[in-house]
């Protein structure tokens, strides 16, 4: 029956069920990834941000919150210019992080 309205999906992130495999694998490969303090320097300096809203901070957060589509969209605009690495106060090797992430499939496995 059409009521003219539908149940809307919850915007809440359920941390019990969120699939963090990609993040967990990333952290194994690039341990510094967990030291992000969300300062946003990377986002502010990002060359591709004006096109894709790319932000390493958001990528890391999105991975932990199951926002895979957003993460992939951001990553697909990264030009690897390295500005974010230059400005990161925690010294995270963001280029390595991005490259490593691009090599992980949905299950968090490195593609061969």
């Amino acid at each position, binding site marked *: *029956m059409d*009521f*003219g*309205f*539908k*149940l*809307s*999906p*919850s915007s809440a992130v359920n941390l019990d069920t969120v699939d963090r495999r990609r993040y967990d694998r990333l952290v194994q490969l690039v341990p510094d990834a967990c030291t992000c303090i969300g300062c946003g320097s990377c986002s502010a300096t990002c060359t591709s941000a004006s096109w894709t809203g790319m932000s390493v901070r958001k990528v890391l957060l999105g991975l932990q919150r199951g926002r895979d589509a957003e993460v992939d969209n951001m990553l697909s605009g990264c030009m690897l210019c390295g500005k974010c690495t230059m400005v990161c106060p925690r010294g995270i090797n963001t280029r390595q992080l991005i490259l490593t992430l691009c090599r992980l499939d949905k299950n968090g496995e490195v593609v061969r």
Partner: protein
Amino acid sequence: MIYQGKQKIWADYQKEIPDDHWFYVRSCIRQNFFPASEKYFLKICRDLLGRDIYESEHHTTCAGIAYHCDTIPQETAMTVVARQFALMTEAGYDNLVTSCITSFGNYTEILETWREFPELEAKIREHLWKACRREFNKPKYVAHASDLVYKLRGEIAERAKYHLVSRATGEPLRIVEHIGCHYSKMFPHKGVGGAEYPCVLSGMAESWGGQIIDYPERRHCCGFGFRQYFVQANRGYSVSNTHKKFESMEPFHPDAIITNCPGCPYFLDRWQYVIAEQTGKTYGRNGYGIPVLTYEELAGLVLGVDPWDLGLQVHQVAVEPLLDKIGIPYDPARKYLGMNEKEIMKPGLPSVLKCC
């Protein structure tokens, strides 16, 4: 769950509820949704327990719905409320008891606002005088009708014909309480038990033999939310909130939901049908829903009032499984007979939710 912990909190949130002499104001919508509830509140209080409850045919809406829908300014609502106070004053009462939670919240909010801003009160008095030449005294006590039933729960229990236990097993029924948002979320000290762990309904259910279950989304709104429902495009949001509550209470397998707000039982009841149609899911046993009762209906059942006299046939979710479980006798044939024993017509049956 540590019960003693709750009791400790309840002890901090006991409000003074006078025993007798109340000026009663009805709810705008309950009379349509659950017509017998207010009737049986008055009947139980007056006839059974011998209390003096007065109501005036001149009272109007408290303007709470319009206020919460942002269609009138607060001053207008205040003036409308001032008029109710005037009716109460004119009738010689000091204690106001409301049927509606939003009214209760509205009255409380207005009185608190006046306490903070006395100049506003003076202004409203002036408005009221200009509008209808009336004057008023502020009520000494404002209570919600459920507060009163809470206070009288022991007396009701003494006269109880049935208890909220399974006739078959003797186990207490698993009752979900749902408190209207405007009851104590704005002013925790105005509600029995406060805002986080209110005990106004749980107190009744427990004293009548039931067991209250505490599920994670207990505090969540029923989904009514005024504007969210009134605008059709937003109803998805409204039903989603209700859905969230049912998903959360589902593992506890409640036997019934008891409410004290006009909108809540309506939405918790009717949305079960919509959710069943949209998702194919029902939350009661064997394809039934979870019966949603007002506290008056529950009190009536406990006191042995005939379920059809209490208007339980106008519920979307069938109450028969609950009645069977408690062992309350009912005549299925009388279900759709009106007050004058005339057929009130049987509704069509939904495709998913089982309704006898």
